[in-house]
């Protein structure tokens, strides 16, 4: 009778051990999945931030390079904020592209030369807190974009043909 009880207890212990082992395995698997999800999200977020943070700066620099001709690039100061103005001739008419920051967005406005400047008229391109431009010399333009989080990104554009003209408006 006593021997039978001992065998039963041993079986119960064995079953409990297997159950514990499986439970531990399930727990560790769940932890691994959570760690994996977090790692994946981290990699994805880093990749997104990497590309997104460059969009505004790359856009401005590419626009400057595309308009690198004589008397085309100018900087305005209106209400203490800066506007990049890129002039071009289309079918004999002069137009300009105005790039500026307004309400946390990098905006662009394409219009005829001489049209009054209105900050609310621009088309929002991407998120950006501020745009800072400086002509370090007439052939070297410094562009700094402040992201919504406060992080700044800056780069220089060396002009091959044009020169930067600064205006106060």
């Amino acid at each position: 009778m006593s021997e039978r009880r001992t065998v039963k207890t041993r079986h119960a212990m064995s079953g409990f051990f297997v159950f514990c082992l499986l439970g531990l395995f399930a727990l560790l698997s769940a932890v691994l999945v959570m760690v994996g999800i977090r790692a994946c999200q981290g990699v994805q977020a880093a990749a997104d931030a990497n590309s997104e943070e460059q969009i505004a700066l790359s856009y401005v620099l590419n626009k400057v390079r595309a308009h690198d001709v004589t008397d085309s690039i100018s900087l305005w100061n209106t209400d203490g904020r800066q506007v990049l103005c890129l002039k071009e001739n289309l079918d004999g008419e002069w137009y300009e592209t105005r790039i500026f920051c307004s309400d946390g967005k990098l905006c662009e406005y394409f219009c005829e030369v001489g049209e009054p400047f209105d900050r609310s008229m621009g088309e929002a391109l991407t998120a950006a807190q501020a745009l800072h431009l400086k002509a370090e010399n007439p052939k070297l333009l410094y562009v700094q974009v402040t992201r919504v989080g406060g992080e700044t990104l800056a780069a220089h554009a060396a002009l091959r043909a044009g020169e930067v003209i600064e205006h106060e408006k």
Partner: protein
Amino acid sequence: MRNSRGNMLLIELMIVLLFFSLAQVTVVQVFAAAHQQAMSSRATHTALTIAQDMAERMHGANDPAQVLMDNGFVLADDTYVLEKDRGFVLQVKLSQLSQPAGVLRTAVFTAVNGEKTLFTFPGVSYEGASVP
């Protein structure tokens, strides 16, 4: 008979656990590799941004070497080196070819991470001699 069946179940469970454990080790390695790849990609991107910015600043500058020195590069064995705690070292090798028609300046930018070369690109600028 009963005891044998119990042992078989235990062995089966152990095999399943072993299989899943190996699968988990593989998954962890994949995640580690992905993280490493992301870090390497970010370092390459940052190095490329700095190199492009330096190339732009040096374009048209009278003394490209001075531009590099002003921006934290250190001269070591004919190569200007920028070491930052960002997972890469940026090297710039300057050379120039002077001719009666002008000067052709070349700056070769190389970013390295340990033994691995992340990228190499040349920046060339030409300064024509003034015609009397």
